[in-house]
């Protein structure tokens, strides 16, 4: 589904990613772990198409297409979804209105008919149960006044509503207490399918107790320095990132 080759990415003149190689197949769950500043968020943002990040070398192919040639909204419409670490407030834009617009863009891209207000509400109610969000969130401006946990759940709600093929979760576990984390993890697990892939970016191993990855990669200093199975995550938890440096 996704193939990244020798990716170098800079922002503001500074090189952050220094040659990333990664292959994500359909139905696979990959965890990317690493210390702060290693380039984890940069990777997620450049895949989503954030304009501040410049690809200086390398490529990324998504479903056989050149990802970096696709504008941001096109990537989303082709099924790439990024759950942000710090979702931004959008005052004045109603959450339900925004979700409906996003869902209908996805439907248009798949050749499906758009949902009207009533149909959308029915559709969304179902999804909201999976993330334990109540309807009061729908009438508020996007993320405005939401607690950290609520923002993360709003991201997972979007994930559930948009049914992406490749879901990238950027430190979705950060700032969540154990119950919130369990809810988010359950939401994600329910969405696992042979046609859907996940990239979970995380600093701590904690979330991986609830979402079992197929592959674990360690990102340090802008490069993937180590890859393994789910046991790698436990090793890191035990020994810390220093151990990787020594190896």
């Amino acid at each position, binding site marked *: 589904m996704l193939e990244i080759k020798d990716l170098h990415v800079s922002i503001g003149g500074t090189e952050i990613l220094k040659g990333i190689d990664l292959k994500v197949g359909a139905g696979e769950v990959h965890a990317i772990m690493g210390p702060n500043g290693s380039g984890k968020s940069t990777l997620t943002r450049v895949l*989503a*198409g*954030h*304009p501040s990040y410049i690809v200086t070398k390398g490529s990324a192919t998504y479903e056989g297409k050149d990802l970096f040639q696709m*504008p*941001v*909204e096109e*990537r*989303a*419409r082709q099924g790439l*979804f*990024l759950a*942000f670490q710090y*979702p*931004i407030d*959008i*005052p*004045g*834009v109603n959450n339900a*209105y*925004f979700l409906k*617009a*996003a869902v209908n*863009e*996805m439907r248009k*891209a798949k050749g499906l008919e758009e949902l009207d207000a009533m149909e959308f509400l029915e559709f969304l109610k179902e999804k909201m149960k999976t993330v334990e969000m109540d309807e009061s969130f729908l009438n508020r*401006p996007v993320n405005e006044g939401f607690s950290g946990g609520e923002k993360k759940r709003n991201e997972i709600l*979007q994930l559930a509503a*948009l049914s992406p093929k490749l879901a990238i979760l950027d430190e979705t576990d950060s700032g969540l207490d154990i119950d919130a984390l369990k809810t988010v993890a359950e939401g994600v697990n329910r969405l696992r399918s042979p046609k859907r892939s996940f990239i979970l970016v995380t600093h701590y191993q904690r979330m991986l107790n609830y979402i079992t990855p197929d592959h674990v990669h360690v990102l340090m200093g802008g490069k993937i320095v180590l890859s393994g199975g789910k046991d790698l995550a436990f090793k890191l938890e035990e020994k810390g990132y220093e151990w990787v440096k020594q190896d």
Partner: protein
Amino acid sequence: MIFMELKQFQEAYERLKRGRRGEPSWLRILRDGAKDFFLRNGFPASDNDAWRHTDLSAFRELPFTPGEDAALISPGELKVLQDKAGKNFILVMNGKLMREYSTIEPGVEVMGLEEAIREKPELVEPHLGQCGASGAEAFNALNTVFFRSGLFFHVPEDMTVKEPLQVVFLADPAKEHATFFLRNLVVIGEGSKAALAETYLSGNGRGYFSSAVTEVFLGKNAILDHVKIAKENAKVFHFASTRTLLRHASSFSSFTLLTGGRLARNECHAVLDEEGAACALNGLYLSDGDQLLDQQTFVDHRKPAGKSHQFFKGLMAGNSRGVFNGKVVVRQDAQKTDAHQTYKGLLFSDAAQVDAQPQLEILADDVQCSHGVAIGQLEEDAIFYLRSRGIGEKEAGRMLAQGFALEVIERSGVQRYKDELISLIDEKLSEQLGNRKG
């Protein structure tokens, strides 16, 4: 502005005077005073503080002539306007109140100002030109000199007018460079409540000078809800003011939407002349192309326990310019005044400009006052977030702009006109975004 160049001005005035021989002496004195003011001071110079950012040179070059020329809009089109509006609808065309196209509820006292001067002098004389806000000023003076008529709306004491009065001021000139001077007078008696909506429209694509002064007098405990929409065509020069005098515990709440005109300057003046008066001034303008939209406010707290809240926003696209000047004066006697003002501007393009200036003059010492100005562009991160959910770049910009504009509507409590205002805003936003490059 040929007739307003001094030598023609005196002649034009003398000619007018001859045509108005039946006017009462108090009105003649008022007009003479305004004429003398204009002869002495002329138009504001570019170093005049209140006009620093509003360039009048294009306006002054055009050969406007006084006296209104009227083209003929079809009766059918006027009927459509009337039917759409429903109850309490008034059509004022080229300055004249058209009863045949108006639907007035029984018991509501509305007539042309010309008629009121003749029939209700006891209500007009004590109020016309007596608002007392910010002293004499060029455009106000011109309006005083040249107005022929407009709207007169009176609500006697202890009466609630249930249906808002919707007035459409339609200008339909036969030639380019006509002028329309409108004077409106609204008198709300003690303990009464009413709502008024003014809409300024162009009947055709010709440019003209549109001068409108609306004077509002609120008796003790009186309440007026006011909405003003100015969406004249892109060649119009619109200079208008709403001047309100508030008596004890009265309340004035006003919302202004400016989208039209080559240059539109709207001034909201409120004099809180007695204790416990309250006014809320809110508004929004959306500019595009080469427009200049200018909102001025002046609130004069003269007595204690007055409240004033101002919330204005501007969205500037293309090469357009937004101006805001919010002046609040709290006099020495006005203890326990609560006065707050906010202006937020959003620039849609690199060429758009905005000049926003709050001015607070506080002479009392036991007050709560604040003011704030914030100018910005569409947030890159917000646009990226929306695009990352599949929403196209233009649509993302539109959603954010709409959210920005709607905040004023939400905070203004203009529930009655919400739908109409939202659709007018959406219409203008589509134009602004349609013209946007990149």
